């Protein structure tokens, strides 16, 4: 019971932060819906552990806790993948900016033009 109360309080705190960030336009509506849905499901799983166990049984997993563990692993792996992809893009964007400055400062006036006569 104590675990459920602490977990729910934590979830309420997290959801309030998400709502605040959404109101401040720091996150988009899609991201807002994702997170709200995620924490709503987490709260539902905490409040009705029997339901989680039933879903686990349907999926052929013994316990509800195991289902929660496997799901978290999949979610963390997915989030990590998205972060890696985004970081890779940011790295490439930084390189593009650095290259643009290098070419421009080196006297090439239109670094993005395909026409070789556009240089300085």
């Amino acid at each position: 019971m104590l675990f459920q109360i602490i977990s729910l309080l934590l979830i309420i705190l997290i959801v309030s932060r998400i709502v605040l960030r959404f109101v401040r336009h720091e996150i988009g509506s899609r991201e807002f819906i994702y997170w709200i849905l995620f924490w709503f499901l987490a709260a539902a799983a905490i409040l009705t552990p029997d339901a989680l166990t039933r879903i686990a049984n349907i999926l052929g997993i013994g316990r509800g806790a195991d289902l929660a563990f496997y799901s978290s692993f999949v979610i963390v792996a997915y989030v990590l993948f998205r972060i890696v992809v985004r970081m890779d893009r940011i790295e490439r964007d930084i390189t593009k900016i650095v290259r643009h400055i290098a070419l421009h400062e080196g006297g090439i006036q239109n670094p993005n033009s395909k026409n070789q006569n556009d240089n300085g």
Partner: protein
Amino acid sequence: MTIVVVIPAFNESRTIAGVLQGCRGHAQESIVVDDGSWDDTALRAREQGAVVFMHLINRGYGAALRTGIEAALKRGADIIVTIDADGQHEPAEIKNIIEPLKRGGVDMVIGNRFSAQSTREGMSVLRKLFITAGNILTWMLYGVWFSDTQSGFRAYTRQALEKVIDVGQNFRVSPREFPRESALQAEGMEFSSEVIGEAMRRGLTITTIPITIRYTNYSLAKGQNFFEGVRTALRLFARRLLR
């Protein structure tokens, strides 16, 4: 026919002047891309009459090479030779490496350190292993086998580079607007393999010629270490999977 040498350099103030002196007489112009060095690389290069482009921060071997190649194309190069700044290559061999391109029918030439006619000095067993691992990885990812896929001493025709590099794709703000970027996005040492993969994908003809390689303690210390090698391999795999 305008021949331009492109030299990516990161903290190479000790060797860059010697490399540029060696290139003199073999190319109309030498371009040095100072990849965020904190030593006098750019100054030493300018003293030797090179055209210098400076990356504000270090972006890696592939990124510097690409900046130099784009600059060379913009400056009207017909043949572009890439050579390392640490002095491991013999600039006098530029005439040999561009020869197949001048004859025609070839788009890209790779300087091969492992041919029977190649001269090798000071190559460690570990370095050989790294290069072999790079060859195997390139074969696994792109289905082509060359005995030296990691060589930095290469020559390209202008047309070949225009195809594989897709100049002008910088600053495409929306990925939706331009759904397919060139596959050549490598910023690190994986550039060497990716350029081969991209060239083969576009049906270009690649040949190899034997070159001389002279490893010194300096160039060995500057080259790929184990962790950089692993990182390079992981990046190659990740890019290939994400395509």
